[in-house]
């Protein structure tokens, strides 16, 4: 005998389920809203000068952000050199060597570090690097972003190494390879596509960071020599131009925003597609 479901229960069911769908559409549409506005304002203000010229002194129109584009690349290079090795090797330790309790403790602290606001990391980079050196520098900015890269580097490395089946390790060790040789010549190469994509995502995440650069890399109207001078970066330029009163600078901020978001999203989409096709995803 079938029990009839009362009309009120059916209506509540339909209404609530529809509402949850509407909420999802609302959230997802924000992405297209952001993309749309940046396309609309960004592309129209984008020109060749943007990529090749220095910023004009205040009051004059025109100019570009060539120094900020190179500056961002330099700061990100430093950040990668500082953050990725530490995070990667710590991830290797967690996946391959560590005991359960110690690994739990490290993982917990790594998650906490991941939750530290970026502005706080900026302050610490200031007290550790800027203050002793006596001036703002690309190196200080790289240190701040490098510390921010560590947590994700650890977690991706651990996750992708754990996804490599144990019989691969056993096979290598049965052939007489040492632990280290097994890890570095068999396990890591097997996970390499996931590892590189994970690190790309990590880089994309800090590429847009502004707050920790405000008082570490500071900014620069000109080209910056080497890594020990203040340096212009794309996110800081967007911020400075967006809050400036001149309309021309707003246009350039939109253009820079468009360039930054395009880079970040392209890296994200590519890396996520590689990960989704990799062995780690299939084992999940």
């Amino acid at each position, binding site marked *: 005998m079938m029990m009839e479901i009362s009309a009120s229960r059916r209506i509540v069911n339909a209404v609530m389920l529809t509402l949850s769908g509407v909420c999802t559409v609302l959230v997802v549409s924000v992405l297209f809203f952001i993309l749309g506005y940046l396309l609309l304002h960004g592309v129209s203000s984008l020109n060749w000068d943007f990529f090749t010229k220095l910023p004009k002194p205040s009051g004059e129109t025109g100019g570009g952000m060539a120094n900020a584009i190179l500056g961002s690349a330099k700061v990100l290079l430093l950040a990668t050199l500082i953050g990725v090795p530490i995070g990667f090797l710590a991830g290797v330790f967690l996946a391959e060597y560590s005991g359960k309790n110690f690994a739990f403790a490290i993982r917990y*602290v790594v998650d906490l570090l991941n939750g530290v*606001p970026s502005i706080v990391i900026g302050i610490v980079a200031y007290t550790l690097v800027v203050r002793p050196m006596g001036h703002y520098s690309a190196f200080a900015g790289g240190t701040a972003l490098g510390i921010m890269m560590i947590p994700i580097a650890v977690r991706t490395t651990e996750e992708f190494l754990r996804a490599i089946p144990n019989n691969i390790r056993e096979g290598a060790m049965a052939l007489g390879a040492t632990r280290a040789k097994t890890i570095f010549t068999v396990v890591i190469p097997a996970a390499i596509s996931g590892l590189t994509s994970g690190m790309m995502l990590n880089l994309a995440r800090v590429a847009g960071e502004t707050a920790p650069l405000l008082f570490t890399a500071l900014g620069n109207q000109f080209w910056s020599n080497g890594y020990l001078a203040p340096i212009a970066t794309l996110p800081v330029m967007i911020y400075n131009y967006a809050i400036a009163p001149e309309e021309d600078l707003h246009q350039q901020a939109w253009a820079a925003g468009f360039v930054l978001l395009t880079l*970040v999203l392209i890296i994200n989409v590519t890396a996520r597609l590689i990960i989704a096709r990799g062995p780690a995803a299939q084992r999940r």
Partner: protein
Amino acid sequence: MATSPSYIAETLGRRTSRGFFARLRGGDEIAYLVTLACAVSILLIVGLIVFELWFHSRATFTAFGFRFLTSSKWDPNADKYGALPFIYGTCLTSFLGMLLAVPLGVAASIFLAEMAPPKLSNFLTFLIELLAAVPSVIYGLIGIFVLVPAIKTYLVPPLKSAFGYLPIFEGTFYGLSFLSAGIVLSVMIVPFIISVSREVLMAVPTEQREAALALGATKWETTWDIVLPNAATGIFGSIFLALARALGETMAVTMVVGNSPKISASLLSPGYSIAAVIANEFAEANGNLYISSLIFMALVLFGLTIVINALARIFIMTTQQKGSQA
């Protein structure tokens, strides 16, 4: 698993049996020690962060003590500092953000975990993860030039005409305000609520749903009465995680909150937040006490987010373990 106890015991046994230096030459012990050093260095980095924040903010603590947190006087020219307007702004904007983001995020995660077909759910989750990847300065850019004018023309006039008598909607609206910051924050933290809540919901065993449906419950009743209570701790975890993000969010808030250190009950008036005042004033701060006060606020922010994050992680872990045991 690579780290099952027996596996570890075996390797430990082998390590002692062959002698430390013999293995050192083979590179095995070096690899172990180097990776261990990196893992331990992360603990040291976190320790160093705490130490640096404490060390460089002592001056403020000796000068004002805990009155620093309750005083609302912020006057760098007179060398008088109080953090209350910033703490108030941080809490108020985060609260507003959560108020909008929590229902939206939980509802969307219910849709993604319980209703959408797996392929659609994965695709939408992919888009939501991209939303989480958008840099905060871009949210600020959209906030200043698109959202704030939109709030000014479409949202505030009806709000004022309907609820203008309430103190929270008092005063003239110029655009940059607590309300604008709260709305931008809500959009920024929704992806974090969704991605964690969705995973927690999906960890609830299917048998629970089947049992409820077999007893004649509708899809919604199953979700609301059976699945949600099972996943509640994890969803709280995701909310805490998002709260920690909101409290520490800097750029977007700085760009739309108005940057005025006043405590006002009205959501329409401009305010300030801890992260925003650090972003605005740190590079130009001169004088030991001024810098020290800003760093002290960073320490407060750090403590707050660490505690909330720690709680969130525990919540999420307990739900996921419950799910895998059942």
